[in-house]
Structures are given as structure tokens and as C-alpha cells.
């Protein structure tokens, strides 16, 4: 079982900047056009595959073993549209790993 970890503010900033750089590179958009409220599909012409690519990238980078199906269930409750929302989901995946679907109090969610 993956153990939870707490990201530092610097690590969160790194993740956020990595997401911006990834999107800039993959979607051929200038970095300065990508901010926290930028919508990945509507403003950058991303597609659903880009989310999967991002998640896989971070799972490898942080050696997190969470099943994609678990991430899928999490995304159904926490839909993502913007860069900041995407970063928040990545933080949750890295910090909570297998416990991703549990409420932060630890009790199982419905």
C-alpha cells in the first residue's frame, strides 16, 4: 500500500510549474499564456488525453502507484477544467495515493 506523504509548498510550486511547462510544450502555447485559471480545453485546445498524460507523468515522477480507475472515480467527484484544478488533483494523488477516495478525516466516502 502506498503511504501518504505531505507535499511542501516548494514541491507544490514545482508541480504547478511542471504542469504549465508540460502544457506549453504539448499544446504549443506560450508559457506566459498559461495561468491558474486557464482552461485546458477551452483556452489551450487540450483534449481528454492530455489529462491522462499528465497523471502518468506525475505518477512516474513521484513513484505513485494508484490505479487509473481510482483516479477516474476521484475525477468524477472533482472535475477539472483549469490549470489550478489540475494541480490540486495532482497534489491529492501524490499526497494521498491509495487513500485518494477516502475523505481526509479517514472515514470511507459513500
Amino acid at each position, binding site marked *: 500500500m502506498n503511504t501518504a506523504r505531505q507535499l511542501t509548498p516548494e514541491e507544490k510550486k514545482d508541480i504547478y510549474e511542471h504542469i504549465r511547462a508540460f502544457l506549453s510544450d504539448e499544446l504549443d502555447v506560450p508559457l506566459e499564456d498559461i495561468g491558474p485559471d*486557464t*482552461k485546458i*480545453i*477551452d*483556452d*489551450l*485546445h487540450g*483534449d*481528454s*488525453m492530455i*489529462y*491522462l*498524460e499528465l*497523471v*502518468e507523468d506525475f505518477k512516474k515522477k513521484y513513484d505513485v502507484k494508484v490505479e*487509473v*480507475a481510482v*483516479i*477516474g*472515480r*476521484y*475525477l*468524477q*467527484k472533482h*472535475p*477539472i477544467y483549469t490549470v489550478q484544478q489540475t494541480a490540486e488533483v495532482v497534489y491529492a494523488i501524490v499526497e494521498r495515493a491509495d487513500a485518494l477516495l477516502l475523505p481526509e478525516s479517514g472515514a470511507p466516502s459513500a
Partner: protein
Amino acid sequence: MFAESLELTPVPVGAESVEVVLLDLTRIEDVEAMAQDVLTAAEREAYASLGHPRRRREWLGARAALKAILLRRGRISGAAECEIQKDARGRPEIVFAPGAHAPEVADCSISHQGRFACVALSGAAPARIGVDVEAISPRLLKVAGAFAEDRQARLRSRSAEERLTVLWAIKEACAKALGGGIGTALRSVRCEETAEGRHRVWTDLGRELRAWHVERNGYVVALADLQDE
């Protein structure tokens, strides 16, 4: 009028009660003029909020294609008589203007990638449908381990790129039929090709769908329908 000039290519996929068409987005000559022709005031507001020009073209093209089908079938007499909105599950639905004669349209679905917008219109309730168009490309090879873990996905022998594209397009089409966006697409599905281009799909939510796919010009078009409610 845009409905006469729009070249829609029928795609023979799915049940007979479902019409599926492709629109080559590169053939739209004047996007802003089409937006004026096709969109209601509320739709123009949503269109104006889209930042990327290609996203605007896709979004508009899909709506133009759906409305053109309705016009050609005589179901509406003008583009302003309906608009495409999102329901609570994020699925597109056709909402007819007050006073307009609302024809029987059970469900619709929209997809776009690369050159094409793809729309599907079902006339048979209670089916919910989902459509997806994907370019066959090596891009999926990088993430195959993530979404193609379905050990029971039995797809007839194709190249790895084709097989992955078919599987991803079917997952996306099923996700659109079910609602729930990318989250639903990432959940486990089992997919069995029962005949050339025909599939049975089961999800980890216990839902069963029918799905079909065809390949056209380097793209896969997949359609899924959900019969049970």
C-alpha cells in the same frame, strides 16, 4: 443558408435509429459568419468565452452539424429554434425554443479531434448515446499502460496504434453515454469485439453498453449506446 452548404459525411456506425456524421472543420470558410447564422444569443455568449480559435471552430462546427441535420429532416425551420446545452451530467442536450414544435429527438452526442467534428443524433428513446472521434496516432502508445490494462479487452488483431485508438474511442464514447467526463473514461471497462466493428462493453459500475467503431481517413469513429436506465 448554412444548412445547405455544410458538407456532412454520413458514418455507417451504430443502430439504424442513430444518425452519425462527420464535418470537415477545415471546410468552414468564415467561422464568424457561421456563428452569426447558427447560434442563438445564449450560444454566442458561450462561444465568445472560448479562448482558442481551433476550439471555437470545433465547438461551432459541432453545433452547426447538429442543427443542419435537424433542419434537413424538417424538425426545425431555423437554427434559432433550438440550442445545444449541457445537462447536469455534462452531456449535450437539444433544448427547443418555447413555442417551437419539439420533434422527437431522444439523444445527441458531440466529439471533435483534428480535422473533424462528429455528431450523433438518436431518434429512439430511451437509449443514451455517446460518440467519439480519435486520430490513429502513436500518442496513445505512451499512456497505453494506464488505460489499456483491461486484460479482457479482446480486440481483433490490428496494429498497436489502431487497437489502442479503438479502445480509447470506445471508452470515451461510453463515458459520454454514461456522463461523467474523463473520470468515467478512466474507469475499468471490459470490451469484447463480437463481430467486425461491433462490441459488447461492461463497466465496473455494472452497466452494459453496445458499441461500434469504423475507421475513416486515419480516424476511428466510435459510437456507444446505453439501453438500460
